[in-house]
């Protein structure tokens, strides 16, 4: 397996040589959104500067070239996650829109009052609120796979939770708060056995480890481009083709039709059926470049690097007095996310004080309030890592925490 040469990776990220408050930036918030390599920025600039035009409907050079680049990006992304065909990849704004698409289109067409949806207690709001709204609107029951004390999913009563009444099961492959890497196999096996549709929120998985949606055998898989070196404004919904074909459209308008008269409209085939209006095609091309970049690094190498970093971070942080670390402490089942609380120091104050040292961490509920209710805290502090993270940045974090404690006399 390749290993990651972080020093040379860092050279590709122009922003990492910036100063923040006079200090070299230590960026530890990649789980919220990653930085972008020059390769991705250049791919988008090239389109805007040399061959820009609206896609699909033009038969002149710029538009043809844009359409080809857009199609290539779709094919690259399909290959990256092991999807069988480019047509199974629907572009959305972000993971949130991808999950809403399933809830609106699949959910409203195929779920009936009395049906049950099962999610987990650790979901991001993006994989929580759409189901809550759907359940309320359609008279469905929403149930939760509970957490263990170690921040893993408690699958001991899976068969009682997922029953023949369960029509849809949705869960995050990796928790954005606890870092827990969830083994999809037992959940998917149980869901399949009762004939439920399976949705996986891969927002924190695709950027960080090899993913193969066909091996996993999920029905839908959602993630965002901006967390995996891509630009803002682009996300992905993978769906099995027969499902995408059977589903009604979500947004309607140009490009998603084959014909419109005053009386009726005929829908285009997937994926275009779900991409109404001018798509974010420059962003899609940027995401294609991000996938090229990650593929060149090798996703096994990316995962190995992050595992080493999170192992080091767990070690160093456990030395700090008054620290509570959330989630599994075994780096083998933990993504590159370290979430913690310090006795007597609110995460916001910690983040503000660390910022003075140029260190960026996130503080709050990380869009997972129900999980925080289970953890018994309103807010936590989170440092998260990616391909450019170095152990010396963990050292800087720990030092910064000691300094903050001193400032606040804790």
């Amino acid at each position, binding site marked *: 397996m390749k290993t990651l040469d972080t020093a040379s990776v860092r050279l590709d990220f122009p922003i990492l040589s910036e100063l923040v408050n006079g200090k070299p930036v230590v960026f530890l918030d990649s789980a919220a959104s990653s930085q972008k390599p020059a390769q991705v920025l250049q791919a988008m600039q090239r389109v805007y500067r040399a061959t820009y035009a609206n896609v*699909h*409907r*033009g*038969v002149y*050079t710029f*538009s*043809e070239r844009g*359409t*080809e680049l857009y*199609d290539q990006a779709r094919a690259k992304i399909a290959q990256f996650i092991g999807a069988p065909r480019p047509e199974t990849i629907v572009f959305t704004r972000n993971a949130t829109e991808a999950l809403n698409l399933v809830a609106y289109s699949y959910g409203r067409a195929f779920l009936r009052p009395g049906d049950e949806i099962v999610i987990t207690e650790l979901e991001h709001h993006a994989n929580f609120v759409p189901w809550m709204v759907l359940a309320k609107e359609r008279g469905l029951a929403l149930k939760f796979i509970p957490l263990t004390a170690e921040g893993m999913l408690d699958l001991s009563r899976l068969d009682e939770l997922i029953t023949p009444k369960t029509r849809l099961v949705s869960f995050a492959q990796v928790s954005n708060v606890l870092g827990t890497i969830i083994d999809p196999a037992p959940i998917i096996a149980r869901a399949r056995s009762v004939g439920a549709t399976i949705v996986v929120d891969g927002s924190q998985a695709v950027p960080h480890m090899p993913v193969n949606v066909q091996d996993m055998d999920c029905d839908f898989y959602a993630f965002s481009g901006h967390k995996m070196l891509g630009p803002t404004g682009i996300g992905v919904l993978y769906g099995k083709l*027969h499902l995408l*074909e*059977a589903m*009604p459209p979500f947004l309607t308008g140009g*490009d998603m*039709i*084959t*014909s419109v008269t005053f009386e*009726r*409209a*005929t*829908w*285009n*085939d*997937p994926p275009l059926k779900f991409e109404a209006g001018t798509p974010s095609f420059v962003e899609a091309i940027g995401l294609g470049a991000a996938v090229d970049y990650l593929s060149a690094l090798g996703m096994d190498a990316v995962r190995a690097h992050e595992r080493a970093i999170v192992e080091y971070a767990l070690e160093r942080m456990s030395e700090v007095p008054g620290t509570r670390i959330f989630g599994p402490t075994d780096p083998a089942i933990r993504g590159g996310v370290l979430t913690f609380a310090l006795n007597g120091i609110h995460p916001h104050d910690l983040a503000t004080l660390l910022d003075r040292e140029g260190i960026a961490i996130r503080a709050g509920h990380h869009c997972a309030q129900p999980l925080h209710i289970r953890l018994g805290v309103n807010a936590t502090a989170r440092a998260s890592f990616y391909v450019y993270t170095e152990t010396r940045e963990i050292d800087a974090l720990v030092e910064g925490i000691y300094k903050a404690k001193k400032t606040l006399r804790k």
Partner: protein
Amino acid sequence: MEDLYRDNLLDHYENPRHHGTLEHADISHEESNPLCGDTIRIDIQLGEDGRHIAAIAFSGDGCIISQAAASMLLEAVAGKTIDDAQKLETQDVLALIGVPLTTNRVKCAALSLKVLKTGIYRHLIEQAQKPHINRQSLDPKSDI
């Protein structure tokens, strides 16, 4: 002139083979190109065996590529079986045209093949009379 608008293509456009409609068609199907709204309809009369294409015609008008491609395609399948026709791919139509097309123009060239294959496909489904087959899931183009 060279390449795309060369004589062979223009000839098929100006003198389309199998152009028209058939009154007692066994298969009739029509679709439009989402790009421009151009419509192509294909009518087929089958031989006694229900497999051979005894007569075939296309109608609708559109750009040179779509019309010439339809003319060339119908010339190629006339007299063959519908099973042969089902095996054709976009590549085969492009080979008939013989000059490179840009991505979006491929859609113009491919329209008649799509109409032909979907028409035959629906015919086969109807013949099969299998009520347990969910037609919606066979036909991706649900609509309102």
